[in-house]
């Protein structure tokens, strides 16, 4: 299969279709219904949104040449301020405060790394230590005074509301209840077509407005960074800042902008985690490393916006499945999907003459297949680590094909080489 000649969007659509085909076949074979259920794709989207936002945040930062491990910490600030703002001033104010808090975290990172030239990873680690301290302190001072709040959690957080797409998903326009096209198609039980429709229905039903914003940010980011003068200048700071400096660009300023946007998006991701879409409450430690998964999505997506979206959906999927999979049967089916994926990697590597890669993929694939055959269900912890395992496997086989911005993580001082 050589899709290389096709335009990128068509190639990705084909990959997605092949992916759904695999899920459909596995589902038939395994007699589970949840792999392509509308509910699964709906929760996939919910889990993907914070990962996507963090990943896009990382994109802005790393395209400007600053590695941002502190995404997690900025996200934590976002969860707290998002929840507190929503409880006290209303849901949209929660979003605004979360974005502002994340941006302040980003500003801190920018001051340390850009102005003072501190190692990016070190500054990020420091922010990840500082942020939970700040939120804990604020909780003890403020949340404990709210009815229903305590030092580790907030009262119920109101959400910004959801909408369902009319005609395609059966949403209503005014008082008119429109038809539900995907729902109708999904109920027809046509092989593959109904499965695709079912997944699509989940993606257009009861979507949060924040999810919509997050999804629209993907093409917007692509346009902003690759089609505008601003984007070109920001990216040159991540590729060859000295060249940008020679062009008269204020490299420091663009790095600041990139890192602050990065913090703002992470803050938005945090607000989404605390919103009723995922939790409906601020809970200490609720980000559970999603900032890091966002970073993983960024790498998986090869530092490109649509790649980040792909990574976020891919990593959100097992989380979404795991949430609904009470008996562990759907997670069990996912091992088979993994085995098939590894087999595909093995074939791909073999056709390119990478023998050791092919053998490694085959061994891993056979291992997954053996695990699948010798077990009936999967303990729930495994589904939580699947995204991390996928990232490692992807990196093992494709690390050489990925390309980070050339000056990513390097210290830049004006006037020095």
């Amino acid at each position, binding site marked *: 299969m050589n899709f290389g000649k096709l335009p990128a969007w068509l190639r990705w659509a084909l990959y997605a279709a092949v992916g759904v085909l695999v899920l459909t076949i596995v589902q038939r074979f395994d007699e589970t219904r949840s792999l392509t259920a509308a509910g699964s794709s709906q929760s996939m989207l919910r889990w993907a949104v914070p990962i996507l936002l963090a990943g896009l945040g990382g994109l802005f930062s790393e395209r400007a040449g600053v590695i941002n*491990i502190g995404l997690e910490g900025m996200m934590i600030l976002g969860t707290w301020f998002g929840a507190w703002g929503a409880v006290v001033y209303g849901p949209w104010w929660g979003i605004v405060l979360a974005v502002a808090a994340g941006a302040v975290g980003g500003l*801190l990172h920018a001051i*340390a790394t850009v102005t*003072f*030239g*501190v*190692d990016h*990873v*070190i*500054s990020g*680690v*420091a*922010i*990840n*230590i*500082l*942020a*939970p*301290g*700040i939120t*804990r*302190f604020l*909780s*003890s*001072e403020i949340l404990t005074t709210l009815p229903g709040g305590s030092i580790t959690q907030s009262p119920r957080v109101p959400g910004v509301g959801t909408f369902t797409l009319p005609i395609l998903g059966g949403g209503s326009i005014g008082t008119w209840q429109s038809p539900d096209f995907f729902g109708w198609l999904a109920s027809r039980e046509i092989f593959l077509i109904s499965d695709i429709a079912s997944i699509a229905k989940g993606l257009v039903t009861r979507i949060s407005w924040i999810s919509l914003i997050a999804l629209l940010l993907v093409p917007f980011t692509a346009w902003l960074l690759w089609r505008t003068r601003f984007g070109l200048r920001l990216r040159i700071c991540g590729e060859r800042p000295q060249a940008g400096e020679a062009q008269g660009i204020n490299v420091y300023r663009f790095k600041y902008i990139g890192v602050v946007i990065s913090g703002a998006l992470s803050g938005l991701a945090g607000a989404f985690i605390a919103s009723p879409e995922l939790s409906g409450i601020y809970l200490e430690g609720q980000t*559970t*490393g999603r900032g*890091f998964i966002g*970073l*993983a999505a960024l*790498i998986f997506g090869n530092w490109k916006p649509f790649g980040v979206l792909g990574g976020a959906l891919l990593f959100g999927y097992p989380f979404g499945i795991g949430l609904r999979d009470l008996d562990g049967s759907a997670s069990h089916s996912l091992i088979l999907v993994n085995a098939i994926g590894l087999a595909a990697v093995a074939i791909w590597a073999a056709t390119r003459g990478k023998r050791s890669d092919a053998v490694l993929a085959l061994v891993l694939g056979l291992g997954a297949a053996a695990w699948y055959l010798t077990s009936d269900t999967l*303990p729930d*912890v*495994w589904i*939580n*680590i699947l995204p*991390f*395992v996928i*990232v*490692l496997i992807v*990196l*093992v086989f494709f*690390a*050489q094909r990925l390309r980070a911005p050339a000056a990513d993580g390097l210290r830049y001082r004006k006037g020095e080489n």
Partner: protein
Amino acid sequence: MNISRRILLTLAAPVVALIFALAMSSVVLIFSGSNPLEAFADMIGHASRLETMVDILNRATPLYIAGVAVAIGFRMNLFNIGVEGQYLLAALVAAHLGALVNLPGPLRILFILVVAMAVGGAYSGFAGVLKVTRGINEVISTIMLNAIAITGLIAYLIRQWQAGGGIQSGVGRVGTTPIPESGLIPNLNSVLEFFTREIRQGKQLTGVLVVAILVGIGYHVLVNRTRFGFDLRATGINPFAAQVGGVPAKRMVVSAMVLSGAVAGLVGMAEINHVGFFPANPIKGLGFTGIATALLGRNHPAGIILSALIFAFLDVSSGVLQFTGAASREIVVIMQGVIILAAVVAYEVASRARERQEAKSAAEALGDIKPSEEAA
């Protein structure tokens, strides 16, 4: 530049960072309606009591080991973020196997330590192997391995092992099978009491302190007195020059990661030896505070002692503040975060000042040749 000036510049940075952190937290405390002076007085007042000192040493012990683990990587420009996952996994496996084997006391102690080092080293070494064979940055791989260890392997294994003969009942005493008393490192109360007075409130000075001291000595000797340590530092300063000089770059990466992980494996020993098993809800976050400890201590074996004591003091003070009610106990976490951020900034500024100084004095020594001509 003369020696005293150099020492002054080295010490100035952490002191400035500490003062900055104190100032910042004072501002926060004033805004939240507490009296910072009262809070700091409570913290220091309690720290001078013997029992609190024992607490501080108990906390500083694992922090020091974690700091050394991170520092070993730092010396070679390797960033082992995975200490967190390595120490928890190592402690779990070591405690479980240590309870299962049938060995006489001292041998069992040794066995537990060796298993912990082996597990930590292997898990960390995996990241090293991924780096040299597949070009995966160790920051990324250790972040992923942390998540896999903590939310996956440990969560799963503890459930399995708890079921197989572990402790399942009793509040706060849930975990793996208990290790027999003879297999635990004895506490150092008698040694400390010999010098001071009787330790009250049932406090025990952890015997792992001895292990930490040995780790510190070993680290110093290894880095400063051996060929391996020379290669390690050389690679950290200039990897290309080191490679030209015959240092096997790939092997060094893997060895440094294995060594760092092996030391990380010992971090959890303090808790294991204190409670006698691996608890279902172990002390977490020591790996990340270990990174902060190594940074504040500048990767220096003695510097890390000081920074471990500072962080341990703050940790313990959190309990003191809760007890006296002078301020919110969470203020110490903010202080830790501010200290580390301020310290790295201060070190950066100091090292740049030193570079300028050196360039200046070199230019002066060279007489009429200006630095710019020299560079050209």
